[in-house]
């Protein structure tokens, strides 16, 4: 049975990966993923031109953009686009019955679609982390880069960012996949989840642990220094007074995603085709 399920999951992934990677309507996700690379590259070019490069400052810039923009905006909305479309997009296109009429358990369909979303999002967003990294640090002398990457903490920082981006895809992906299964209008749950994630800084300790961003911030390797002045909203978004150890954060994020996917799989058994009302 496992072999059959594996073959079916692979078949679903082949169909969905092609759609996710090559769909014209998914172009904005690539642009969103690569959008931080543009200012980083400009910064590099200006620094090189002015001979004014501060490696420590660039490490902080990367950390700030990653935590403040990339995790919270780019990956969040990218996952909305990728994962909500896996089911809701098929309903809008009136093509979900294609999968439901095959001898595949609904749970297997859901897992196949989730994995295809995951492969696509991790490839796009982790790929973009590498592009951003190169864009920001490419203008520094090779000796400095070598020393940072191979004798300093650079490699471990890069791996942490990649893991954080991948975990963000797992966490947000599972949540938006479930939202696509449960809700007709994806914008409402996306807005509610965005508000919840943004309120992470002011939530009580117990509640913040059921947000994705709390665990993601714990995986990030660099603490951002407090912005000068009394910018309390920014402080709330960036800082975490009580971070979890990275391994615990990864494990909890996986558990959270697993729970959400299982719940969505149970709900997927009750999906009915009612395109007329979409």
């Amino acid at each position, binding site marked *: 049975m496992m*072999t*059959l399920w594996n*073959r*079916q999951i692979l*078949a*679903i992934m*082949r*169909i969905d990966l*092609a*759609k996710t990677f*090559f*769909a014209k309507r998914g172009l904005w996700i690539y642009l969103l993923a690569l959008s931080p690379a543009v200012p980083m590259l400009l910064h590099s070019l200006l620094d090189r031109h002015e001979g004014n490069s501060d490696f420590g400052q660039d490490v902080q810039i990367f950390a700030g953009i990653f935590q403040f923009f990339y995790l919270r905006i780019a990956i969040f909305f990218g996952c909305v686009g990728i994962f909500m479309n896996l089911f809701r997009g*098929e309903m809008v*296109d*009136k*093509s979900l*019955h*294609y*999968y*439901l*009429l*095959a*001898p*595949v*358990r*609904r749970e297997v369909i859901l897992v196949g679609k989730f994995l295809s979303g995951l492969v696509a999002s991790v490839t796009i967003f982790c790929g973009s982390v590498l592009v951003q990294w190169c864009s920001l640090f490419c203008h520094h002398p090779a000796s400095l880069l070598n020393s940072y990457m191979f004798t300093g903490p650079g490699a471990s920082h890069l791996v942490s960012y990649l893991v954080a981006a991948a975990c963000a895809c797992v966490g947000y992906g599972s949540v938006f996949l479930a939202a696509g299964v449960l809700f007709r209008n994806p914008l409402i749950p996306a807005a509610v989840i965005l508000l919840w994630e943004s309120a992470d800084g002011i939530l009580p300790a117990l509640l913040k642990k059921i947000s994705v961003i709390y665990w993601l911030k714990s995986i990030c390797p660099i603490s951002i220094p407090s912005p000068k002045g009394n910018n309390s909203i920014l402080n709330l978004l960036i800082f975490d007074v009580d971070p979890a150890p990275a391994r615990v954060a990864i494990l909890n994020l996986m558990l959270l995603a697993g729970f959400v996917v299982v719940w969505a799989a149970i709900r997927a058994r*009750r999906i*009915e*085709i*009612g*395109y007329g*009302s979409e």
Partner: protein
Amino acid sequence: MDAIILDNVSKFYGEVLGVNKVTLSIPPGITSLVGPNGSGKTTLMNLIAGLLQPTRGGISVCGLSPSDPEHFFRTLGYATQYDGFPRGLTGWEFVRNYLRLFGFSPKDTERMAWESIDRVGLREASQRKIAGFSKGMRQRIKLAQAIAHRPKVLVLDEPLNGLDPLARAETIALFRELGNEGSHVLISSHILHEVDLISDQVIMMSQGYVVAEGQIRGVRDEISEQPMQVLIRCDKPDVLASQLFHHSQVVEAKVHADRGGLLVRTHHAESFYKLLNRIALDGVRIESVAPADDDAQSIYEYLIGSEESTK
């Protein structure tokens, strides 16, 4: 075990009735599901195929339930009326990817996909994107998908919509072939004159209810309050009419519009045919006698009313 069984099935969309208290046992062969738009045909087909879940009642197809999809959908193929396809696929990919979901080997997948595409006559166009297909080609590729895994039960929602006359004739021949092979072929149509050409039996629906089921002639025989209409082709229809008026079996007789025959309405078909034999001996040359209202259109009008049947 060899029938499609619906046991007191109802489906409501909130307050709105989809189908109500449907109990059917559909044997192998070609069965047409007939009714105007909104009568519940698609809802019934979606229920049979497990795309909808009944509010009440139970459904089994050859002893299998949609809650066991791994076995159920190897037995059933469904060409829906939905004109939606996964984006970006060619006709060939559409059928091949569907077969991949069954877990067949790549070699079997390819062979079965080509066989079904050939069966609907779409080999040449199959490498083109479905988005560029005509309505008739989309209908045929959906049919190819539905038959690709050689299901024992085939459910087809308005399969002849959009087909040109040649493709229509070929598709009807394919239905007959499948029916003769012992498959269940359940076809919905709101074009009633098509049904007579295709079906072994009919299920007539109106406003969510099954109003009649069975072989067309059998259903007609059961509508006893409506006199049978018989068309008699003969050389002297006015003479024949004057002779028939004297007999109590005849409710109405009128000369056909082409003046080459007589339309007679009678409550007692058997005794009327005996009477006709006697009259034929009295000098009227009768060429043919045939029931004129045992087609789906007439039966539907008797049962539901002419207004609905033409919607």
